[in-house]
C-alpha cells in the first residue's frame, strides 16, 4: 500500500462525512440504492493505513463483492454475468477533502440502519469545540464497529469472503 491515498493525503481532520461520501460513491458505483456497511468498509479501505491493517486493497474487496453476488446467483439457479462496467460515480481522488453540508446532500443516498449506527457511534467525542481525539479516531471507530458485525450483515459477509479474521484485526487495530 503506497502513501498518498486520496483520502488520507488530503484530509487533515478526519470527519464522518468524508467516510459517508466515499461510501456513497462506492454504493453508486455498484448500483446500490442504499449505503450499507459493506460500502463503509470499502470507504475505509481507501485509507492506506487501514487497508494495511486488514491487508486487503479496495480493488480486492470490490472484486470479492462481485464474486459473492455471482455465487448467490448460482445458488438460486441463475447463470448471470457481471461483465458490465460499474456505474458512473465520482472517483475517490476527486471527492472533497473537507466535505461541506452541500457536498453531503448533493446526490445523497440513504443509509441502511446498521451503517447509520456504525457511523453515528464512531463520531462521538468529535464535536467542534471539544478536544480532537486524533485524526484517525473516526475511521478506526467505524472499522471497530464493522468488525463486531455478524453474518448475514454485508460487511461481515465481505470480511468472511476475503478470508479476514475479525479477532486478529481487532488486535492489530488497537496498535495503530
Amino acid at each position: 500500500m503506497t502513501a498518498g491515498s486520496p483520502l488520507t493525503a488530503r484530509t487533515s481532520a478526519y470527519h464522518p462525512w468524508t467516510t459517508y461520501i466515499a461510501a456513497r460513491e462506492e454504493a453508486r458505483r455498484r448500483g446500490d440504492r442504499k449505503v450499507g456497511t459493506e460500502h463503509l468498509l470499502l470507504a475505509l479501505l481507501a485509507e492506506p493505513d487501514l487497508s494495511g491493517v486488514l491487508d486487503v486493497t479496495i480493488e480486492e474487496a470490490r472484486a470479492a463483492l462481485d464474486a459473492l453476488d455471482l455465487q448467490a446467483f448460482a445458488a438460486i439457479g441463475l447463470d448471470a454475468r457481471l461483465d458490465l462496467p460499474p456505474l458512473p460515480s465520482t472517483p475517490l481522488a476527486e471527492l472533497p477533502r473537507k466535505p461541506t453540508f452541500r457536498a453531503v446532500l448533493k446526490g445523497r443516498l440513504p443509509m441502511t440502519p446498521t451503517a447509520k449506527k456504525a457511523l453515528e457511534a464512531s463520531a462521538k467525542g468529535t464535536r467542534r469545540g471539544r478536544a480532537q481525539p486524533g485524526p484517525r479516531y473516526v475511521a478506526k471507530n467505524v472499522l471497530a464497529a464493522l468488525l463486531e458485525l455478524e453474518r448475514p450483515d454485508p460487511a461481515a459477509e465481505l470480511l468472511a469472503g476475503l478470508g479476514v479474521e475479525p479477532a486478529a484485526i481487532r488486535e492489530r487495530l488497537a496498535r495503530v
Partner: protein
Amino acid sequence: MDEATPGGLRAALAENDPAVGFRAVLGLRRLAERVESRQVALAREQGWSWQQIGDALGVTRQSVHTKHGKLS
C-alpha cells in the same frame, strides 16, 4: 451439482441458505441498474431522445435525464 466435492457441497448448502438468497435479490437489483445504465448509454449513442428512453422505461424523460444525464 456433485455433492461429493467440497464445491458441490457448498453450493448445495447455499441453495438452502436465506442469507445467500437475499444477497441474490440485492445482487439482481444491482445488475438491473448496470444493465439500465449500459442500455441508456447505447440508446443515446443511437440517437434516442430522452423522451423515447423514458417511454421505454415507463418513466418521465426528466427522471431518466436526472438519473443518467451525466452519461452523455
